[in-house]
């Protein structure tokens, strides 16, 4: 008996009981569909987070100062000395505070960040309209401000805020630029803020010290060098108290985020894999029932010359066709489901062929593995006993 005949026979017997075949396949279908859609979702979120972290710049180091005793921050001048250190390309100190910003009769509560011109390159954060801060703004303590995209819209609607005035803590600032839209990221809401010159901020804000420094290393390879320099300067400043500051390395963050995500993906695929296994057990169950029901058929086939392997093959193909068909439908459902989720919610979905092929292959394997036992049982039936079976 050849492959083609075997598949034809298997399809014939599957088609003769469609509802049962469908129910048998259901477990595999759900298993494959959930592997594909869950992994797509998991990879989607990994990619999104990775992109967010990378958008902060891969050479970027972030220093948060909490301080020690009365010494809770650094001064602008202290920070500027870092710029000269080997491995460090640029630094952008930030003085920040929550304030109320007013424009006309509208007001909103946002974070004001006082910084200087290097912020633009270090954080790769540009003005979509107008200009960024210039060194001259810092030098002369200009009362100029850049608005985050959302803040601009909130205060000015669709009118361009350029050259209009906003009031920060009651002091009027001229709007010179609107920041590009960045969306929310790990470092908070990027679009709801106001940027002003650091020298001005030191004057008007309640907490004038620098507590956040963005540092750009000269290259990704120099990140460690830059980190060591920062480390040296800060331990000296805080007299060896390592708890008074923290240095975040973009690379470390990326690694921990992706390791969390891959653990999550693995757990999801584990659960989905278990459901595939359960689907396989379902197939075995039905195949065993089917072997019992068809004992007489097996007897007839054997009487007219079917060999052990013909019967084995027939039932094995049947279970592989069942699981394979279930796998195919599962792939369709999984891919469709992943796209639907990506389309109808703002969750990002990354579809992967590897996982699709793998789970389809696994469903075939499940068919073979769980089909072997029933098929073997059928093949080993004694022809006379099978014929006598009612």
């Amino acid at each position, binding site marked *: 008996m050849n492959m083609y005949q075997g598949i034809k026979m298997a399809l014939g017997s599957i088609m003769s009981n469609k509802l049962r075949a469908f129910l048998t396949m259901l477990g595999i279908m759900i298993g494959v569909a959930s592997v594909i859609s869950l992994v797509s979702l998991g990879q989607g979120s990994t990619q999104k987070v990775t992109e967010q972290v990378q958008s902060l710049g891969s050479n970027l180091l972030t220093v948060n100062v909490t301080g020690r005793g009365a010494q809770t921050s650094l001064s602008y001048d202290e920070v500027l000395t870092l710029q000269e250190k080997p491995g460090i390309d640029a630094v952008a100190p930030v003085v920040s505070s929550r304030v109320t910003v007013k424009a006309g009769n509208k007001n909103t509560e946002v974070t004001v960040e006082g910084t200087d011109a290097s912020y633009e390159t270090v954080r790769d954060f540009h003005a979509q309209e107008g200009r960024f801060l210039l060194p001259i703004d810092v030098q002369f303590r200009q009362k100029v401000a850049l608005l985050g995209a959302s803040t601009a819209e909130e205060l000015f609607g669709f009118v361009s805020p350029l050259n209009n005035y906003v009031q920060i803590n009651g002091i009027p600032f001229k709007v010179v630029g609107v920041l590009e839209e960045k969306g929310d990221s790990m470092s908070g809401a990027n679009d709801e803020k106001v940027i002003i010159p650091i020298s001005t901020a030191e004057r008007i804000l309640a907490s004038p010290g620098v507590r956040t420094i963005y540092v750009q290393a000269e290259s990704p390879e120099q990140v460690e060098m830059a980190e060591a320099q920062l480390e040296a300067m800060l331990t000296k400043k805080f007299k060896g108290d390592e708890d008074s500051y923290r240095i975040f390395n973009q690379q470390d963050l990326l690694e921990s985020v992706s390791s969390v995500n891959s653990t999550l993906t693995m757990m999801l695929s584990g659960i989905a894999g278990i459901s595939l296994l359960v689907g396989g057990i379902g197939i075995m169950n039905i195949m065993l029932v089917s072997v019992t029901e068809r004992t007489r058929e097996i007897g*007839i*086939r054997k009487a007219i010359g079917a060999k052990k392997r013909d019967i084995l093959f027939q039932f094995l193909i049947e279970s592989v066709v069942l699981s394979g068909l279930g796998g195919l439908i599962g792939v369709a459902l999984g891919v469709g489901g992943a796209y639907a989720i990506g389309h109808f919610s703002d969750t990002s979905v990354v579809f992967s062929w590897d996982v699709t092929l793998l789970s389809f292959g696994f469903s075939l394997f499940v068919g073979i593995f769980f089909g072997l036992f029933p098929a073997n049982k059928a093949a080993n039936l004694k022809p006379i006993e099978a014929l006598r079976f009612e």
Partner: protein
Amino acid sequence: MKSESPGPLIRIEGLSKWYQMGGETIKALDCVSLTVYQGDFVAIIGPSGSGKSTLMNMIGCLDVPTEGSYRLDGVEISAMNDNQLADIRNTKIGFIFQGFNLLPKLTAIENVELPLIYRGVPTRKRKAMAMDALEKVGLGERMHHRPSELSGGQQQRVAIARALAANPPILLADEPTGALDTKTGKEVLEMIQHINGQGHTIVLITHDLSIAQQAKRVIRIQDGKLYEDWSDAG
């Protein structure tokens, strides 16, 4: 079909089949001997439980004896494994059962094709052979009907076509008319006689003397022992 066999087609010598039932041994066949030559038509007749089906299973290579020798077409069967037995059933023997034993989900022609599939006959040739066999039993018009759409007599004729399709030298019929009314039973029997006329060797099992008497040879079986009934011969 083999045209010229030097020895007998079936040679059974001192063959026994025992069944263990609890502590008791049932001798379903007790040291029987039987020789059948090609072209013969043998009827085996005996009461219920006498061992007819057991003998049939031995001749049909569905089971192996406990003791004794069975040579089919010169080949010793007792020592064969399952696969070899399957091959012999496929090429040497055509079965006709009391209950037809057709596969209900297959059409008439698909049923007839089955032994040819297991023999590995290519599709086109197989279809032609199956059609041929169905036409021989007068079912050329009913090829694509399923067993449930056929009368009992027609179903038995499909079964005969299936047994004939692979052109085996021996046809084994276990109460082929048992499930049929007298008239269709007679038709089926005539068909079997006709097949015998074409050179096929036939072993027919029955408990009906009038049917047995249609055969060339009648053998009685009683409590697992054979008695040749020469008086009915010829």
